[in-house]
């Protein structure tokens, strides 16, 4: 009952005219950013974050804006996946598998509308999950002390290594780089300058906005330089524009199942939408068996990843709001946004800033409705944006990135640092290091060190406090399990490989 009251309070916040306007704007921008190949939710949130800050938006409005962009990207990613066979963001890779064949069979309109509805169902189910579980978890999380937090963050990083799968060492390295970048600047407890190389501009640490924009926008520009694929024709959306009742019934349970699975995966710290959509696609394919036409235009193969990636986007807000530990790269950026406002996300957020939390949750419902309404009739407009040529798009992204970084401190040093980090990020991406792990590490860095040192201050330097309580022990066990996953998978694969060989 209490939750319902808070939710009503949240709707009060979210339906204020400015917040509605901001949600509408964010949904639109998010869809556009999501559908442009190469630009994903992190880019969208990173580009708008400095703007929101410079405009002096109150924290709840800024967060609503960013959440709307985040959701919008998950909606937008499918448009280019279906019409162009190019995923608009990483999570939409699975959507191309069945979406593009459908479009080529002249069912683009059906695919687009059905995937919009799947996205909607996924988000709404997951948002209900947030409403139900977030307050519970927040209450429980109050019991977390510094030692528990420290171990929780280690668990989050281990999750990344365990779930991203094929390159655990590189993922962990990237996370460590992020943690190390966060140590630059004055040490908050002792005032010692660390890794500043005598530069005044670095004494404050590296600004979060610079890291995000450098690593994601600038490196993206350099990557786009390589694939100047031009003249790829988008499939024209023709034929029936809306799916019929039978098609909806066929996919309904797929949507629900995928939404629940996506939500659960999203709540795990570190594991994001990409994994959720891949896992649900695979399990739906297995469930359909031989009757499914997965891979050449099965509607269920379209509905499953779309419902799952939206659900996991919403689910990843849970660890962010209740524990202050991001569930995905994009929520890591949102945590950075909150810290710009001097709000520390964590269990106390629910008590101290109910407007922010519940306003955000309520705005998820509103944002989804806006996106659904926007996405069915306006799909023609959005798909036309796919034809914006790179020689207009890239300069625009560049300028907005520069303005975003410049608006924080107004120094040229920051701009140069951004370009430098961008080049570094480009090299890392060429070498196959996942940058979202790096951002996660960077956001967690300061909290992690603070909590470690606070815990050890409490115990007077005794390391036992790090594995003294049942919570820490459980978290350590989970961490070990996560770290063992890649090895286990490798072992199973090899054994299966041997079995096949033995049969042959």
């Amino acid at each position, binding site marked *: 009952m209490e939750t319902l009251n808070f939710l009503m309070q949240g709707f009060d916040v979210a339906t204020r005219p400015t917040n509605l306007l901001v949600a509408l704007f964010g949904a639109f921008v998010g869809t556009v950013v999501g559908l442009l190949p190469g630009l994903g939710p992190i880019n969208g949130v990173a580009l708008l974050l400095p*703007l929101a800050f*410079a*405009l*002096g938006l109150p924290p709840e409005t800024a967060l609503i804006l960013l959440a709307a962009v985040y959701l919008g990207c998950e909606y937008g990613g499918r448009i280019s996946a279906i019409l162009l066979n190019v995923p608009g963001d990483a999570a939409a890779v699975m959507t191309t598998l069945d979406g593009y064949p459908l479009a080529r069979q002249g069912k683009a309109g059906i695919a687009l509308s059905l995937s919009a509805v799947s996205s909607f169902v996924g988000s709404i189910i997951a948002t209900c999950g947030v409403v139900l579980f977030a307050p519970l978890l927040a209450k429980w999380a109050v019991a977390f002390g510094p030692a528990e937090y420290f171990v929780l963050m280690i668990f989050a990083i281990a999750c990344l290594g365990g779930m991203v799968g094929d*390159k655990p*060492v*590189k993922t*962990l*390295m990237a996370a*460590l*780089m992020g*943690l*190390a970048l966060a*140590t630059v600047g004055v*040490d908050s*407890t*002792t005032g*010692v300058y*660390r*890794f500043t190389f005598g530069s005044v501009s670095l004494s404050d640490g590296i600004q979060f906005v610079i890291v995000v924009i450098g690593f994601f926008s*600038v490196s993206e*520009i*350099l990557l*786009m*330089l*390589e694939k*100047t694929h*031009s003249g790829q024709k988008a499939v024209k959306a023709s034929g029936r524009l809306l799916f019929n009742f039978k098609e909806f019934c066929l996919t309904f349970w797929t949507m629900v199942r995928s939404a629940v699975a996506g939500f659960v995966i999203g709540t795990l710290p570190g594991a994001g939408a990409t994994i959720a959509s891949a896992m649900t696609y695979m399990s739906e394919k297995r469930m359909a068996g031989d009757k499914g036409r997965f891979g050449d235009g099965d509607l269920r193969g379209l509905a499953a990843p779309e419902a799952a990636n939206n659900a996991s986007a919403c689910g990843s807000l849970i660890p962010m709001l209740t524990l202050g530990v991001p569930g995905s790269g994009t929520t890591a950026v949102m945590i950075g946004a909150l810290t710009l406002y001097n709000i520390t996300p964590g269990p106390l957020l629910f008590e101290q800033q109910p407007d922010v939390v519940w306003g955000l949750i309520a705005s998820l419902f509103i944002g989804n409705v806006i996106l659904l309404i926007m996405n069915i009739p306006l799909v023609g407009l959005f798909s036309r944006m796919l034809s914006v*040529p*790179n*020689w*207009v798009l*890239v*300069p*625009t992204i*560049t*300028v*907005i990135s*520069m*303005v975003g970084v*410049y*608006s924080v401190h*107004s120094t*040229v040093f920051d*701009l*140069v640092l*951004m*370009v430098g980090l961008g*080049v570094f990020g480009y*090299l890392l991406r*060429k*070498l*196959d290091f996942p940058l979202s792990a790096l951002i996660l590490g960077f956001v967690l860095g300061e909290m992690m*060190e603070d909590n*470690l*040192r606070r815990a*050890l*201050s409490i115990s*007077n*330097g005794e390391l036992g406090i790090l594995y003294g309580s049942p919570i820490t022990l459980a978290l350590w066990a989970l961490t070990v399990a996560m770290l063992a996953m890649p090895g286990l998978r490798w072992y199973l694969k090899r054994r299966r490989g041997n079995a096949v060989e033995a049969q042959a």
Partner: protein
Amino acid sequence: MYVRVFAAVWLLACAGLALLAWGFEAPFAYDPVGPRAYPLLLLFLMACGAAWLLFKPHGEPTPAFDRAKAQRAVLCVLALLAYALLFEILGFVISTALAGFALGLLFNGRLWPSVISGALLGVLLYGLFDYLLDVPLPLGLLRLLES
């Protein structure tokens, strides 16, 4: 191959940074850990990872070095750096117009469309940010016109 080179460089960087980090001493002990242990721990773990990659660089076989691509990437980085450095000196409008033009050409735009899109970007975005959104941007050279 590239991963190995990177891992070697990173290993050296870790060693260098560790030497630097060794000097972080607080004049007075505020907490039992101090400012030195945590960065050293991170550097040590990173060095372990780099050493692992040095001996087992997995992933796809390295693609051949593409001269033309690399050249374009270097040009793009130079354009971005020049843009960053000239941002305050030339002012937002002029530097943006130039950068928009250069990047437009680099991304296979034709000459005149790139000129026009660069100029439009400079003027329109200045209007958008400075007047509508209240984000102050440097005027640079154009300030001379004002006085």
